[in-house]
């Protein structure tokens, strides 16, 4: 059963076509990778699903709901969380607090409750803090919990983003180049982490990644984009054999 159905999505910025008539389905519980050369439109699709960019044409259905009818801040209420290629963290807050912001939709303390510390505000705060710490432990980040979310290694910051997404209990987790800036051994660890998260929390994962070894190792389905167009789709082995892919992307890579 497909969780996310992307149908005929076209995005134009002025005269530039960033995505052209893109359609694909993402199955529940799978890790799907979106690959393609730089500028192929992968991050653009993420931004369309997050409702940051407005598509020119097309529709996106998530779990039977029309995603394009929701404002950006509603997207995570239906269970879609994401990370960013260039990070979207809050540097003056500690790592723990960053993750606590991720729990925004699953908590409900309002301004007056917060100001007066009444009606469960105190206990909710405590519970949120505890949950955030647990998520950090699960992602091996407990030792930086009280460090400000700045000045840490890039790979750590990217994991903090994953933690921030995970505390919201996502059904669909979208990761934008989680492996960038990591060493080889760290990439292997990350692969294990992503798979582990998927298995433990029944996630579906949509992954944008340039690290081919990792993509081939962990994804069940791969969608290949080039210049905003889908040029191939299938399992890793199918994609690896695909002529168009080899020519447009892997071929260029190998030479």
């Amino acid at each position, binding site marked *: 059963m497909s969780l996310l159905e992307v149908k005929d999505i076209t995005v134009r910025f002025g005269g530039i076509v960033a995505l052209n008539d893109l359609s694909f389905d993402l199955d529940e519980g799978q890790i799907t990778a979106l690959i393609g050369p730089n500028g192929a439109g992968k*991050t653009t699709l993420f931004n369309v699903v997050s409702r*940051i960019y407005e598509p020119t044409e097309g529709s996106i259905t998530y779990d039977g709901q029309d995603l394009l009818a929701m404002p950006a801040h509603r997207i995570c209420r239906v269970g879609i969380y994401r990370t*960013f290629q260039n990070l979207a963290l809050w540097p003056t807050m500690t790592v723990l607090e960053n993750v606590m912001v991720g729990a925004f939709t699953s908590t409900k303390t309002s301004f007056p409750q917060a100001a007066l510390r009444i009606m469960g505000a105190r206990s909710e705060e405590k519970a949120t803090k505890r949950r955030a710490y647990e998520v950090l432990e699960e992602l091996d980040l407990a030792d930086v919990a009280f460090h400000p979310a700045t000045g840490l290694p890039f790979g750590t910051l990217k994991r903090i983003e994953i933690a921030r997404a995970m505390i919201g209990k996502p059904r669909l987790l979208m990761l934008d180049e989680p492996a960038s800036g990591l060493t080889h051994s760290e990439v292997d660890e990350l692969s294990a982490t992503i798979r582990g998260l998927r298995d433990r929390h029944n996630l579906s994962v949509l992954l944008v990644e340039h690290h081919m070894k990792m993509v081939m190792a962990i994804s069940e389905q791969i969608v290949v984009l080039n210049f905003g167009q889908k040029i191939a789709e299938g399992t890793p082995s199918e994609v690896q054999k695909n002529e168009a892919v080899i020519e447009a992307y892997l071929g260029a890579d190998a030479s």
Partner: protein
Amino acid sequence: MSLFLQRMIEGLSNGAMYGVVAVALVIIFKATTLINFAQGGLAMFGAYMANVFAIEQGLPLIVGILLGAAVMAVVASGIERVLVRPFDPANHLPVVLITFGIAYILQAVAAWKFGTEFKSFPSPFPSGPNDHIEIAGARLRYERLGVVLVLMIMVGLVHLILNKTKIGLAFRAVSSNTESAKLVGVKTGRTLNFGWALAAMFGGVAGGLVAHFTQLDSGFMDKILIFSFAAATLGGLDSINGAVIGGLIIGLVESPVQPMVRDYVPGFHFLTSDLALLVAFLLILAVLLVKPAGLFGTTRVERV
């Protein structure tokens, strides 16, 4: 009808003065996305300098005004180099603090050096009781028409500078993309410096024109600056023509509105020109609600 026409011209000439200062604000905003809250202070000081050159030293008035503006251009370029450039333009607060600080200092120094009493200031145009032309019974005074003329000349000039000179080209490059401009070898620092000097020049000339209508004192540009803010915001902070049109609109709104409201709305009969400020404020809010970037401003697409 003739009275209405006369008021229109008064409004347009006021608007032209707002427009000149607004262009000064826009020049700086275009290049750095910053707003110079000291623009009024610089213009005020320029007018005092004009007073020194023209009245005290006996130079021709036009030369005095231009010299005053030139002095302020030098001062502004110094301010840019020493006080503004060290800061990241994306961080707005320091520059707000610094430009307000400069405004405070300029006002204090002016009040201290030139006194706190109002000084009258001549117009560079014929301003005697009979210096006017009559059209359909309306008396159009030369001092008023002259201001509009100066505005047109200055806007023409700034377009010439930006479109026909090398530094103008560099300026446009920096305004559209500072990073790319730097990469192709544009000296961004020098270009921004030029922008500040040009803006102060504009402000200084405006100061010399306004002073005749308001008299000189250390705060005479405050209200003008607020109206110019309104003009620039209305037109869109990054559009020079927008600033001019915004200025003219504000001027028109201000001058016919005030007597009409005074005459026809009960309870407002004693009203001073300050109501215009309120009207201008509501006007900006209304425009920004419909077009958040102003009438002629460009909306930039944010990249994620």
